[in-house]
């Protein structure tokens, strides 16, 4: 049986936030007397993650995804509740715990700006107590997986965003951690760079049985990497389960565009009991529930003269977008 590597119980986090009224009067008032209030950004959440799982955290901006990730890796202290990651309390930041995890943030960088990435890799290797031979071996292996070579010897400031992100990944993985926390790792990357990064993460997960917690606003990252998603809405978990179940729940029908041989056939099809979305001449778009697609298509092909048909999946971004604004999903 696969063991839980992350165990979160009744976790809450509050921040003191100061607010300011607009205008000069508000500014002066704010300078002398700050109005602060405690804001609960994470509200009593519970979940477990198994070893080797890739879990995507979904939610709108400010929903609390990054705060959860930061508490899981031990950057910030929880206000209430408990977290166990690989048997450790993350916020104690024990050396063995830190050697087992990594945090990669798409919008922050740790590489030394004026030097080639290779210098940062060797610096990190010494921090993780790796000898030169071992460091060299790991850099070679990871750079092959990431398909970077010459870039390792060019100053970071001269690298493209994609090359920089690959180097950031290498710097963050040189100690071969088993738990990866990724906060929008593909932010700002072009389509090819995003795709390469996803392939690399899949490979790393497979080869190292690594657990990956990922937040991303690019749905392709989530759909191609995560079987399980945790949806966060205003600091609470609105859904925790399989991604395909969520998609079925959110999008129970598919749209079928049918091109009939004649307009008469299209009219006949429109009157045969299907939900019609629209009809233009001999082209008709109908909606069919996911669970009856096969039988419905069989009926249509047997009874009508069809020239062609297309099954349209609703855009994933549109479907997931519904998650970001809804409080609860019971599946």
């Amino acid at each position, binding site marked *: 049986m696969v063991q839980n590597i992350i165990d979160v119980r009744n976790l809450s986090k509050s921040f003191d936030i100061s607010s300011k009224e607009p205008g000069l009067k508000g500014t002066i008032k704010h300078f002398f007397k700050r109005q602060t209030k405690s804001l609960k950004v994470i509200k009593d959440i519970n979940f477990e993650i198994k070893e080797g799982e890739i879990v995507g955290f979904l939610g709108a901006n400010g929903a609390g995804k990054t705060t959860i990730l930061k508490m899981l890796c*031990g*950057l910030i202290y929880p206000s209430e509740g408990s977290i166990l990651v690989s048997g450790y309390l993350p916020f104690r930041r024990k050396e063995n715990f830190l050697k087992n995890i990594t945090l990669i943030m798409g919008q*922050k960088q*740790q590489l030394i700006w004026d030097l080639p990435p290779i210098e940062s890799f*060797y610096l990190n290797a010494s921090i*993780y107590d790796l000898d030169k031979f071992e460091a060299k071996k790991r850099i070679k292996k990871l750079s092959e997986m990431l398909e970077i070579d010459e870039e390792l010897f060019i100053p970071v400031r001269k690298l493209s965003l994609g090359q920089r992100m690959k180097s950031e990944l290498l710097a963050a993985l040189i100690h071969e951690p088993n738990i990866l926390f990724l906060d929008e790792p593909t932010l700002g990357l072009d389509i090819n760079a995003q795709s390469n990064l996803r392939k690399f993460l899949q490979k790393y997960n497979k080869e190292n049985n690594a657990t990956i917690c990922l937040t991303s606003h690019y749905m392709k990252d989530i759909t191609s990497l995560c079987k399980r998603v945790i949806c966060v809405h205003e600091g609470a978990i609105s859904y925790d389960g399989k991604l395909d179940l969520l998609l079925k729940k959110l999008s129970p029908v598919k749209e079928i565009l049918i091109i009939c041989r004649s307009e008469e056939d299209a009219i006949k099809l429109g009157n045969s009991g299907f939900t019609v979305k629209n009809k233009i001449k001999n082209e008709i778009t109908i909606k069919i529930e996911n669970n009856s697609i096969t039988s419905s298509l069989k009926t249509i092909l047997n009874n009508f003269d069809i020239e062609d048909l297309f099954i349209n999946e609703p855009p994933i971004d549109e479907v997931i977008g519904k998650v970001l604004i809804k409080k609860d999903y019971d599946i």
Partner: protein
Amino acid sequence: MNLRKYLKVYKKFLHTSLASELEYKTNILVDLITAILSLVGSIFLLSIFFQNNGYIGGWKFEQALIIQAIYTILNGITNTWFNPNLTEIVKHIREGTLDFVILKPIDSQFFISLKKINPSGFLEIMLGFFLLLFCIKINQINLSLSFLSLSLITISCSICILYSLWFFISTTTIWFVKTWNAIEVLRSFLYIGRFPLNSFSLSLRVFFSIFIPIAFITTIPSEVFLGLSQLWEILLEVIVASVFFITSRKFWLFALKFYSSASS
């Protein structure tokens, strides 16, 4: 603490920061010229003060020059290590890159205090030492083992006090986010350390001994050089340095509990 690992990491820090700085040759050259001009300017200013009156606060010009030498060494240390690292703390906290530091299996205070060096500060340290050697000669100071040990202890304590004060102020960034001004105030106070403590009024002497211990930073090591120091003063400096260092350390560990990281 694994000393071998820390030495290895420090060697890497030296290598990477030197390599980074050497990318910008002109900048280093300008820094070197600034260090020389700054020392010449300070000695000129000091000589003006002593022009009409041979003594200030009971100190001769030749004796006051020792304070200037110690100040130059300390300023060199400040420019080599404290300035590039401790001012970065504010940036790390404001931009949230402290995340990468505290998630490394290494002491975070060690990392952020020593990661960078500014090689041009070395020249200032060397100039300070040359000036000190010159002062030893003109003040006819006898070099003995006890004298060298006491000098080393007091100068080390001065470095420790200066570092702890600076680090303490930088740490408050975790709550106040922006503390550049406080660091500038500290630097301004350090300029005062170029003059003998006795040249100030009693109230200022008390202030610079208790609240901002400038007295401990330059005056006491200078007194050691002139054979004017009392044992209790040296002991007091050791105690003050230890208290300052331990407090700054505890304060850093305490402050990290309140670190909320910058939003992404």
